[in-house]
């Protein structure tokens, strides 16, 4: 619909020009053609002059007053938003740093505690080892001592046995044969019998 009309409107200047001379001023003032093409009407030019004035005033008021004001408001807001964003970013960095610090502190504390526990366990183990060693040593010494005592007791007992045995044997042989036995023969016999296995001797 519009394109057709636009074409029709585009033809109107020609129509107006054709009409204007024939109709004259009176027809023009009434309904001859479009008022837009009545260039003879001084108001057609007057409105343009006034428009240029109004447009210029509007331009200067906007350019000098309204638009700088708008621009400053927008800039202020952009600046405020940027500043807030920066502050938020800084706060986040700070918080991240604090968290990292906290984590590090916790890790250090844990490591320290573990080291202390390990040291305590180590020293306890060492003390126990030392104690065991000294105990063993003492027991060993006591054992040696006891063995020595036993050996001494056995030697004493053996000595006494030999004396008793030689005495007894000499007495028995004197009584049986009427004469004392030869000392060397007795000694040999005694040594042989005493060297025999203890199980049979003592049993």
């Amino acid at each position, binding site marked *: *619909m*519009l394109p057709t*009309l*636009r074409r029709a*409107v*585009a033809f109107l200047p020609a129509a107006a020009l054709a009409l204007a001379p024939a109709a004259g001023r009176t027809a023009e003032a009434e*309904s001859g*053609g*479009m*008022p*837009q*093409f009545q*260039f003879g*009407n*001084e*108001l*057609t*030019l*007057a*409105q*343009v002059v*006034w*428009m*240029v004035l*109004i*447009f210029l*005033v*509007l*331009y200067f*008021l*906007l*350019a000098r*007053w*309204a*638009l700088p*004001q*708008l*621009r*400053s*408001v*927008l800039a*202020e*807001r952009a600046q*405020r938003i940027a500043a807030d964003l920066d502050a938020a970013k800084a706060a986040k960095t700070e918080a991240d740093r604090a968290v990292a610090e906290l984590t590090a502190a916790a890790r250090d504390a844990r490591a320290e505690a573990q080291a202390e526990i390990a040291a305590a366990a180590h020293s306890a183990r060492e003390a126990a080892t030392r104690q065991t060693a000294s105990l063993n040593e003492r027991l060993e010494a006591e054992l040696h001592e006891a063995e020595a005592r036993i050996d001494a007791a056995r030697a004493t007992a053996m000595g006494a046995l030999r004396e008793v045995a030689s005495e007894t044997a000499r007495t028995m042989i004197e009584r049986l044969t009427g004469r004392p036995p030869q000392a060397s023969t007795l000694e040999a016999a005694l040594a042989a019998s005493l060297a025999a296995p203890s199980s049979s001797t003592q049993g």
Partner: protein
Amino acid sequence: MAAGPSIDALGQFRLATSLGPVGAAVNFTNANLAMLLTAALVLVLFGYGMRARALIPGRTQAAAEMGYEFVARLCQDIIGEGWQSFFPFVFTLFFFILFGNLVGLFPYFFAFTSHIAVTAALAVIVFGLSIIVGLVKHKLHFFTYFMPAGAPKLLAPVLVPIEILTFLSRPVSLSIRLFANIVAGHVLWEVFAGFMLIVAAALGAIGIVAGVIPLAINVVLVGFELLVAGLQAYVFAVLTCLYLHDAVHLH
């Protein structure tokens, strides 16, 4: 024509002086009154509406800021480098035409963009500005604009006149586009409204019922005209930016 309602689709465009004898003395027309109202509305929105300078804008301030950023982005995108110096001009032009179109949509308010003299004056301002900017920025080098770069020199006698013609047709198409669109809408409205009255007068009760049809068409046309009002202001601003871009950057 017999007595009774008739269609006078062009009467709405008739110029008359306004503001009484003072206006008559200086030829201040009804179109200029609409322009004054338009300028006042623009200043109210972008001046008075911003008085709060609120960090979190209210409705009016949000609208003003949206308008500012819309035109700023337009200039930035199309003109490119150096858009800031043309921004107030494009801004004024866009909102002068947009508010003018919208004011003109109200009954009894004059649509000053429906006058070819007005739109032509605006187009000539844009055209003149683009030529001045081009000449100031590029001196005589500006005229290389009429010879497309890379084209064979042999074609120059053909290409240069075509380019010059295209260039000269800019203000013509710019002014006629806006003027024709606004006139077409207003004429259609008037025709359908007049038709409604004619039908009602001629057919009595049936006519009153039948008159609902042109009325409904006009209601639909209101939405259409709102679209045209915004679109034509936008097109005018976009083309202005485009011409200024050509003047600044030479293609």
